[in-house]
C-alpha cells in the first residue's frame, strides 16, 4: 500500500522558537513507525500536525491520500490517538468513557453496545467496566486510553509514549496488543523513549532532534549504519594504537565506545590488560550517537 501519511517540509514556529524545521517522511500502510527523539525534539508537535491538531507554519500533511486541510472531519474518523497525557473523563466509569468517546465519532448506540465489551476484553479491562477512572492504576488507565483510541476501528493509530511510567507487566501487555493491531493490518505511528520498545515494535524508525529528521530506516539498518552492529566499551586509560584507526569511536568519559562489524578481529587485537565489555549494538547506541549525550532540559 502507498503512503498512509505523508509529511512534506513540515515546519512549526512558536514566536521565536522554531520547534519543527522541515520534517518530511512517509508512513506505508500496515507498518509500525517509531518517531524517536529527545525531549523537546519536536515529536509531539510533529504528531499534532499530522492529526490536524496544530496548524503547520509551513509544509503540508497528506493522510489517506488527501490534504488534511481539505479533508474536514472525515480523516479523523479513520485515526485513533493515544495521547501522552491520560485525558480520560475522571468522573465517568470505564465503560462510559468509551461510550462518550464513541459518540464523538457518531457511532450508534447499537454499535457501541456491541463494540465496547470487545474493546474492554481486548485490553483486559472487562472486569473493570463499572469502575470509576479515578480508581484505576496507571497501567489500567493507559489500557483504557488505548481501548478508547480503537472505538471507531481506525486504520491509523497514533501512540504518543504509550508505556511511559508503566511497570514491565503493563508494558508487555501493551506491546502484545500493538503487535496484534499490526497483524490486523493497522498502520501505527508511535513515539517512545524506550529504545527496546521501538526496536521490538517498529518496522521503521525516524530519529528527530532539534526539529529535524536525523535519519530513518529499519532498526537493523540504522544499527548497521551508525554503530556497525557491535559495541566494545573499553575502560580508560587505553594504550596507544590498540584500536584500529578505521573504526569509529566515541569518548564517553570513563571509557571509549568502539563500533565494529567484525567483533572477532577487534577482540584479537586487544591486549589482555585492557578491560572491555562487548555487546551487540542496539537502537539506544544509534539514538545516543545521533542525538548526542548532552542532557536535555524540559
Amino acid at each position, binding site marked *: 500500500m502507498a503512503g498512509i501519511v505523508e509529511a512534506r517540509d513540515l515546519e512549526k514556529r512558536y514566536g521565536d522558537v522554531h520547534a519543527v524545521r522541515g520534517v518530511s517522511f512517509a508512513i506505508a500502510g500496515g507498518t509500525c513507525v517509531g518517531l524517536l527523539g529527545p525531549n523537546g525534539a519536536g515529536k509531539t508537535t510533529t504528531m499534532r500536525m499530522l492529526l490536524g*491538531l*496544530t*496548524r503547520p507554519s509551513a509544509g503540508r500533511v497528506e493522510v489517506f491520500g488527501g490534504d488534511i486541510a481539505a479533508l*474536514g472531519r*472525515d480523516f479523523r474518523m479513520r485515526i485513533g490517538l493515544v*495521547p501522552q497525557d491520560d485525558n480520560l*473523563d475522571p468522573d*465517568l466509569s470505564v465503560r462510559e468513557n468509551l461510550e462518550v468517546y464513541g*459518540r464523538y465519532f*457518531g457511532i450508534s448506540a447499537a454499535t457501541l453496545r456491541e463494540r465496547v465489551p470487545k474493546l474492554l476484553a481486548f485490553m483486559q479491562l472487562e472486569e473493570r467496566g463499572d469502575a470509576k477512572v479515578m480508581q484505576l492504576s496507571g497501567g489500567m488507565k493507559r489500557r483504557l486510553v488505548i481501548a478508547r483510541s480503537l472505538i471507531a476501528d481506525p486504520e491509523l493509530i497514533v501512540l504518543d509514549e504509550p508505556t511511559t511510567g508503566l511497570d514491565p507487566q503493563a508494558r508487555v501487555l501493551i506491546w502484545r496488543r500493538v503487535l496484534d493491531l499490526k497483524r490486523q493490518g493497522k498502520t501505527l505511528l508511535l513515539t517512545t523513549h524506550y529504545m527496546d520498545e521501538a526496536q521490538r515494535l517498529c518496522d521503521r524508525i525516524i530519529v528527530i532532534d532539534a526539529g529535524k529528521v536525523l535519519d530513518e530506516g529499519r532498526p537493523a539498518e540504522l544499527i548497521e549504519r551508525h554503530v556497525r552492529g557491535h559495541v566494545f566499551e573499553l575502560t580508560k586509560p587505553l594504550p596507544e594504537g590498540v584500536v584500529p584507526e578505521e573504526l569509529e569511536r566515541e569518548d564517553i568519559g570513563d571509557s571509549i565506545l568502539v563500533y565494529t562489524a567484525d567483533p572477532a578481529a577487534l577482540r584479537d587485537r586487544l591486549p589482555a590488560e585492557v578491560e572491555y565489555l562487548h555487546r551487540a549494538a542496539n537502537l539506544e547506541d544509534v539514538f545516543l550517537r545521533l542525538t548526542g549525550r548532552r542532557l536535555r532540559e524540559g
Partner: protein
Amino acid sequence: MSTSTLPLNRYAFAVWRRNVMVWRRIMWASLTTNVCDPLLFLFAFGYGLGAVIDEIAGLTYLAFVLPGMMAYATMFAASFETTISTYARISMQGTWNAILATPVTLTELILGEALWATTKGVVSMLCVLGVGLVWGGIQAPAGALAAIPILALGAFCFACCGLAATAHAKTWDFFAYFFTFWVTPMFVFSGTFFEVTRFPWFVQAVAWLLPMTHLIAVVRPLATGGALVPLAAVGHVAYLVVLTAFAFWLARRRFARRVFD
C-alpha cells in the same frame, strides 16, 4: 477545520451529552442548591426588603423581584458553567484535547459547551420559577411560562459571553475580573432588585449595554402581566441575538488560535 456544515448536529450533542452524563452524578446536590438558593433569597429579601418596600413599579416587591431572580439564576448558572467549569475541562481534565482529536470540530465543541450551559441556566431558572409558583408571587404564570424561551436565549447569550471570556483566560485569576466586571454588574445594575431608571443617566447607559438588562426588560412584564411594547421586546431580543453571535464568533476565533497555533 471544516465548518461549512451546520454545527448544530449530533457531534455538538455528543459534547452536550458528555456533560449531562457527568452532571447526572451530582444532579441531586446541584438541584438542591438550585432550589435552596432562591428560597434563601426569597426569605431574606421577600421578608426583609418586602416589608420596607410597599410597592415598586406598581407591583408587590415579591412579584417584582421573582422575574429578576429567574434571570439572575439563568445568568449565573450559564456564566459559571462556561467559565470555571469549562476552564477546568480545558486546563485540568484535558477534556477538550481529547475531544478535538475526534471528528468533533472546534465549532461543534464550543456549541456543545454553550448548549450545555444553556441547559444548566434553564434548569436553574426553572427551579426559581417552581419556587416562585409554590411560594406565590408569580403574578402571571402563563406569561412566566412564555418567558422561558426568552430566558433560554438569554442563557445561550450568557454562555457564549462566558466562552468568549474563557477563550482569553490564561490562569484562574482571570475569572476574578470576569465575575467582578461582568457578573456582579449584571447583578446590581440590570434591574434584578430595583428598576434601572433609578440610576443616573450614565449608569443607565452602561446598564443597557449588559444583556441582563435587556433580558429582564422582557421577562418582567411577561411574568407580572405588565405592559410590554412589542417593538421594544423585539429590540431587546435582537440585542441578545446580536451579542450572542458576536460572542460566539469571538470565542471561536480566539479558541482556534489557542488550540491550533
